[in-house]
């Protein structure tokens, strides 16, 4: 009974408040509105901040990409220059016979005769025929200049080709078949990689050029083609192509002569690049064509493209003109209509009086009370804002105790190498001399390989922690890749000549250890892409110079680099790619220690994220090659990376 009554007591209270309502003061809604507006402005600020950050990140990324692209271009141009210099040097140092025999023919201007050195690659008859077929005599005096020019530009290739073909120098023929050159050139183009493209395509064109020169003695089109392929002269060709199309188009459109001419200029301007590309592409593709359609077809392409462009441009310009005229007419009509209406307008008969309703004014809250309420609110806001800010400050200083980061870095390395006279890769036993493993050859290969500079890439995961307020420690695991390219004119082959491998330090080391009976033969100069891969475990100490939203820290430490493998990818025909792992037969040291130094500029994105750009240096304390190899190489790596950090606490 007592419980029932108590239950009733509670229910009575509940019911009493069921329909109850008390009107709050009028200022309350004003306060709510103010709070809502404040919250909205905060949201806006946050959105703006996100946009700002996005913009900053995109600019950083764009700069990074542009830098990498510029760097890649710079490295390639350096490599090409180095390749040409080496090729020229080799011509005058390694193949004196070829030079002496070739020079008089160039000077005479009537024939390009290549002779082969004593040592060469035997066994490939097809290639011998192809290469021999490049030995062409040109009897026509009218093409002398063109031939000479091409010979001058492609000096290196002229030497390289006869060297490849050298085996059959005795059987060197004077062939007047113009097409064989072109076919040969086409084959080479198909095999060409990007790095070698310039050289091979020039070779192809050089060959086809000779063919063309023979076939079309006085043709200007052929001369254009020759110029097209040489990069330096491509602009001239495009201009020529553009001029040709200009003429054609001008002649077809006679009615609107002035406007069309303007359009033609614009269209030509736009299509200079395209036409050059078209001519170059078609040249490359059709260099082996018997009737040498390449130049003609490319010219047709150019004409067509320019024609279309002119047609479009005409349409646009004509439609613009028509629109402009129509607009003017419409405007005039409107003005006239307005004038006529204003003239015909009659004065109003009845003037309508404006009725103004006078409502009793709604009771307004006392402005003083409102002002006081607002002031009170503001005071509260300030009080509230002040405290969290202090707390936040403390929080930011205390936070970022532990973090992890993923990163990527790209850069370059310059190798400071040294080749000594003692070592398994350099010296060779007397028994191996007959196989070509002599000291001069090995030291040249070793020097080329170990001193090659290139690009370095790394990516990995890091973990960092704060030791004191300013000092941090970080470490992790990175995958490191170093790409370089060097040139050599030697290949290693078994005694039965069944396969060819690029001459390298590893090959010389194996040969010297007596583990193989392979021999070294000289060949045409070719590029070898040298790729070394490591797993790097860096441990770094860092000093936080700036520890705010924008952070700046200086890092230094040591990295343990575990050698994974080395891949040699030769760019020559029929030369195998070789992979060298760890082990006793490997010339590479399995474990290296490198010094690290770098800076890190970062920006905090929200509570848990930080984006950082970190340029750095890496220098190995010891050579990447084993001590007994006879070659030392300490590549100094300079890279710039980007890290995305997640802050745990």
């Amino acid at each position, binding site marked *: 009974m007592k419980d029932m009554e*108590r239950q009733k*007591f509670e229910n009575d209270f509940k019911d*009493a408040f069921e329909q109850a309502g008390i*009107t709050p003061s009028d200022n*309350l809604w004003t306060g*709510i509105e103010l*709070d809502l507006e404040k919250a909205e402005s905060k949201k806006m600020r946050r959105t703006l901040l996100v946009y700002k950050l996005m913009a900053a990140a995109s600019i950083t990324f764009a700069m990074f990409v542009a830098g990498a692209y510029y760097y890649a271009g710079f490295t390639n141009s350096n490599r090409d220059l180095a390749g040409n210099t080496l090729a020229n040097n080799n011509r005058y140092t390694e193949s004196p016979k070829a030079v002496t025999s070739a020079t008089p023919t160039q000077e005479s201007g009537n024939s390009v005769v290549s002779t082969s050195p004593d040592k060469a690659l035997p066994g490939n008859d097809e290639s011998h025929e192809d290469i021999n077929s490049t030995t062409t005599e040109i009897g026509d005096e009218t093409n002398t200049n063109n031939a000479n020019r091409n010979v001058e530009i492609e000096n290196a290739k002229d030497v390289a080709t006869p060297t490849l073909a050298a085996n059959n120098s005795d059987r060197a023929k004077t062939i007047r078949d113009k097409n064989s050159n072109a076919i040969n050139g086409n084959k080479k183009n198909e095999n060409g990689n990007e790095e070698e493209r310039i050289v091979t395509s020039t070779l192809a064109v050089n060959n086809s050029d000779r063919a063309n020169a023979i076939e079309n003695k006085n043709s200007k089109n052929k001369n254009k083609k020759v110029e097209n392929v040489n990069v330096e002269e491509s602009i001239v060709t495009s201009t020529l192509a553009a001029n040709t199309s200009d003429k054609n188009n001008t002649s077809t459109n006679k009615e609107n002569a002035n406007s069309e001419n303007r359009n033609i200029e614009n269209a030509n301007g736009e299509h200079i690049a395209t036409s050059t590309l078209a001519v170059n592409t078609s040249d490359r593709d059709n260099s082996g064509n018997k009737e040498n359609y390449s130049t003609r077809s490319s010219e047709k392409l150019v004409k067509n493209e320019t024609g279309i462009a002119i047609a479009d441009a005409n349409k646009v310009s004509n439609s613009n003109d028509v629109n402009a005229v129509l607009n003017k007419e419409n405007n005039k009509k409107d003005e006239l209509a307005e004038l006529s209406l204003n003239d015909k307008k009659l004065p109003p008969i009845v003037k309508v009086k404006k009725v103004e309703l006078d409502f009793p004014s709604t009771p307004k809250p006392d402005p003083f009370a409102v002002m006081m309420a607002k002031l009170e609110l503001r005071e509260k806001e300030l009080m509230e804002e002040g405290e969290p800010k202090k707390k936040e400050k403390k929080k930011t200083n205390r936070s970022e105790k532990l973090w992890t980061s993923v990163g990527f870095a790209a850069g370059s390395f310059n190798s400071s190498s040294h080749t000594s006279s003692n070592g398994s890769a350099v010296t060779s036993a007397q028994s191996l001399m007959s196989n070509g493993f002599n000291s001069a050859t090995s030291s040249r290969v070793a020097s080329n390989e170990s001193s090659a500079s290139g690009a370095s890439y790394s990516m990995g995961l890091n973990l960092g922690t704060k030791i004191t307020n300013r000092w941090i420690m970080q470490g992790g695991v990175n995958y490191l890749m170093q790409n370089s390219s060097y040139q050599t004119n030697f290949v290693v082959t078994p005694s039965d000549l069944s396969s060819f491998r690029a001459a390298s330090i590893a090959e010389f080391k194996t040969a010297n250890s007596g583990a193989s009976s392979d021999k070294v033969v000289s060949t045409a100069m070719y590029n070898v892409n040298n790729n070394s891969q490591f797993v790097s475990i860096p441990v770094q100490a860092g000093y936080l110079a700036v520890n705010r939203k924008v952070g700046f820290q200086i890092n230094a430490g040591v990295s343990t680099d575990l050698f994974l493998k080395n891949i040699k990818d030769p760019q020559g025909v029929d030369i195998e790619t070789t992979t060298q792992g760890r082990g006793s037969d490997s010339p590479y040291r399995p474990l290296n220690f490198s010094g690290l130094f770098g800076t890190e500029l970062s920006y905090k994105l929200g509570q848990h994220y930080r984006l950082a750009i970190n340029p750095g240096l890496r220098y190995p304390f010891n050579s990447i090659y084993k001590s007994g190899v006879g070659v030392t190489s300490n590549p100094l790596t300079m890279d710039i990376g980007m890290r995305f950090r997640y802050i745990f606490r």
Partner: protein
Amino acid sequence: MCLYMQNGRTIGYMLSEIELIEGCCKGNRASQKALYDRYCRKMMVVCLRYSKSTAEAEDILQEGFVKIFNSIKTFRQEAKLETWITRIIVNTALNARRKKLYLYPMVDVESIDLPEEELCISSIHFSQLIEMIQSLPQGCQIVFNLFAIEGYSHKEIGELLGISEGTSKSQFARAKSLLQAKLLKESSFYERYGEAKV
């Protein structure tokens, strides 16, 4: 949208609950004002029950409505809008009071034994009842409101306020006995002077 009538006359159109919610989700100030106008009176009573003064109640109400407008997008319409709003207001009130509860921790209290007389609450105006509730000690006031009016169990109250179930029960018993004493006083006053007080 439905007709809004007063004294048998149509004086305007009233937005439906869904329209109000949609408007508030878009941040439409007129919809927010309409929602406020619809529920402010009722919620003011809730705030008064949990506070000691009108000013304090208004602060809670303001803070509560700002929270409502900022988080109305999360309202899934599984419960009634009024229930959802009341829960937010109660939580806001509890947050505001919690700071003070730290200063005055709730401890077990003994109830007062009262004569078993039938008390008639319906005859007392709700504003008086509010005054009575406001006059209760802080802990008792909150526990009484949560248990008797909001309908929470003692276990839930214990979890909500971070106190034991027993403490909640004893606080409620104390609140109830205090209220009964006040009500007895009021009823004797009515008996003596009639119901013309209010």
